[in-house]
């Protein structure tokens, strides 16, 4: 005990652990950056709106109706946000299962991104719950609704957050200088990875399976019994596109933290990811064609919703897929980033088409989110980025771990 205490003290320039933690809470660097100037008012406004929401009920700030009970907060924050967080399970699969060491340098930041996405976007779920104080009921067994897909998704969210925290925990231990804890925690990584990939497979598809009972409510071009498969496959390239996108920003913003070696490796990593994106998008596009032909909805193509469907499939799946292949061949990193952004737009489009736009599409009064729903969503995203930045500036996520880690 004494011994470990000493190591902490030693590693943090002679300060005690609490002093160290308090010191780390303080902001680092300049205050008045453009990002802060934009995000702070929106976060404060979001906070006010959240207070109003819990005080006056969901109807006070949302446009949800009895017919459309799930809106932007579920369709975008949760369903789309979790798809984008899929990069974490794909990358841990590549690095820890397939032993593709090339990608090792971006595992930590991706797992951190994934973990925070789950905490915040699944956390946004709490805002949407009418009776959030009962949220622990399916965990403590005040009704195990085991026939519910949502029961599965809720448990998986919780377990996967734990798995991701374990995957990321060596970085926290390195930050605190806790050598023995780091050794124990990194020994648990493989188990957490295997468990995490299994959980991700099930709840990425499970988010789609939530909508299986809405057979009569979702537009037939988007409803099929294969929604779970589609959601799973698209989470692979959604997650990887997010990794490419986030990587291109992190490499600029946190330039000083990244070692020479990892800087050089970055382009090769992005190219590798773009290849995987293209392959999975091809599989996804092919599956979509199969489902479409199987569904015999040729007549629906020549309707407004049909054009919308074609735009999604050709403009935001086939086109970015071709762009990935083209820019991979040409070794054009800029174009790969464009393709990643288009892919992400396509995933947003797809998730919203299933959950909001195609949901009760024939209803006379359509659900359109209020500006307040958008503000809260933005506030959640900004808060996540703040925490993300806070962690990266302190823990060895992008930068190399402390020297004692490699001592044996």
């Amino acid at each position, binding site marked *: 005990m004494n011994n470990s205490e000493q190591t902490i003290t030693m590693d943090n320039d002679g300060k005690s652990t609490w002093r160290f933690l308090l010191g780390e809470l303080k902001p680092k660097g300049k205050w008045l950056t453009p990002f802060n100037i934009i995000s702070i008012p929106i976060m404060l406004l979001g906070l006010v709106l959240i207070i109003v929401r819990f005080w006056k009920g969901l109807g006070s700030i949302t446009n949800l109706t009895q017919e459309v009970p799930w809106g932007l907060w579920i369709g975008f924050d949760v369903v789309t946000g979790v798809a984008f967080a899929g990069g974490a399970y794909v990358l841990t699969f590549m690095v820890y299962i397939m032993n593709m060491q090339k990608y090792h340098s971006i595992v930590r930041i991706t797992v951190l991104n994934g973990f925070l996405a789950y905490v915040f976007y699944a956390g946004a779920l709490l805002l949407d719950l009418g009776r959030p104080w009962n949220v622990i009921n399916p965990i403590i067994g005040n009704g*195990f609704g085991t026939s519910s897909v949502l029961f599965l998704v*809720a448990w998986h969210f919780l377990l996967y957050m734990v798995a991701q925290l374990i995957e990321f925990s060596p970085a926290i231990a390195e930050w605190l200088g806790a050598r023995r804890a780091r050794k124990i925690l990194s020994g648990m990584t493989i188990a957490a990875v295997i468990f995490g990939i299994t959980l991700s497979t099930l709840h990425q598809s499970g988010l789609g399976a939530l909508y299986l009972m809405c057979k009569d409510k979702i537009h037939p071009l988007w409803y099929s019994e294969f929604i779970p498969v589609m959601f799973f496959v698209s989470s692979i390239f959604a997650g990887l596109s997010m990794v490419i996108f986030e990587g291109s920003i992190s490499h600029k913003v946190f330039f000083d933290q990244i070692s020479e070696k990892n800087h050089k490796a970055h382009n090769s990593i992005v190219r590798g990811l773009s290849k995987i994106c293209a392959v999975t998008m091809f599989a996804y596009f092919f599956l979509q064609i199969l489902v479409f032909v199987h569904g015999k909805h040729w007549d629906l193509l020549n309707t407004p919703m049909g054009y919308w469907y074609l735009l999604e499939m050709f403009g935001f799946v086939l086109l970015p897929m071709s762009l990935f292949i083209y820019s991979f061949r040409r070794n054009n990193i800029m174009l790969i980033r464009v393709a990643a952004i288009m892919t992400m737009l396509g995933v947003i489009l797809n998730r919203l088409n299933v959950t909001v736009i195609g949901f009760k599409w024939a209803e006379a009064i359509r659900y359109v989110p209020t500006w307040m729903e958008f503000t809260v969503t933005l506030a959640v995203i900004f808060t996540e980025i703040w925490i993300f930045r806070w962690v990266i500036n302190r823990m060895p996520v992008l930068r190399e771990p402390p020297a004692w880690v490699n001592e044996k």
Partner: protein
Amino acid sequence: MAVNRRSFFKVLGVTGASLALGKELGAAPRSKSNVEFSGILYDSTRCAGCQTCESACAEANGLPEPVGTIEAGVIRKTDESHRTVVNAYNSTKGEVYAKKQCMHCNEPACTAACLTQAMYKTEEGAVIWRGDKCMGCRYCMVSCPFDIPKFEYHSANPKIEKCNMCFTRLSDGKVPACVENCPAEALIFGKRRDLIKEARKRINDNPDQYVDHIYGEHEAGGTGFLYLSAVPFNELGFNTTLQTESYPALSKGFLYSVPTIFVLWPAMLLGLREATKNNQNNQDEHE
């Protein structure tokens, strides 16, 4: 390596626990009890549109008095303070009334959707809502093919409102308030099986008066609320394209695949990891 193997068993342990949790998949009809499902038969040819059922329902459940009178072609909807409404429809046989409320499905989508069993199908057949369990996620509303559960959007402590077949009255040996107060005897309460027999009999005795269709006999896997009508049901605002299979059956396939994936995935992942280990060694030598 030893640690890996141990961690693998840890994974297996958790898998086992999840399997045990996943056992009660699917909302199968309750076969363990011998109680037969009760239901209500509504004969729209007898209904005079007096709205007595609406006020009786409001009174029995402590809800505000119904608002608005019936006007042909104007569709009123149930909402968070009105569990039942009667509407008049301009049909091929003139003005026809139809009462709408929860259908009390045999295998309800809402109870299969509920992750806390707050939506619950009682042994007697009533589908009820239990506030102490509900977290207000509204997945029941998303799933219900009849759009029945309603949510109090303007409350800090919102409830889900829907007809519960007056199940507290049922346990006191009484019949639902709407049935008891219907002056035209358009509503009858009984065992679902007997109600279907009675409905069949009415159709057979007066084939000219009724269409040969009991709405709810097969729709959505069969419902506790059954309807007779003189005109095709689509003229009365009913969805006649609903599947005859129950709605929970739609997600059953996915739920059954869960234990399979939980067993196969960890094993496969561990195998892949072992199989690709040489790659790592090669790469290490490269560096």
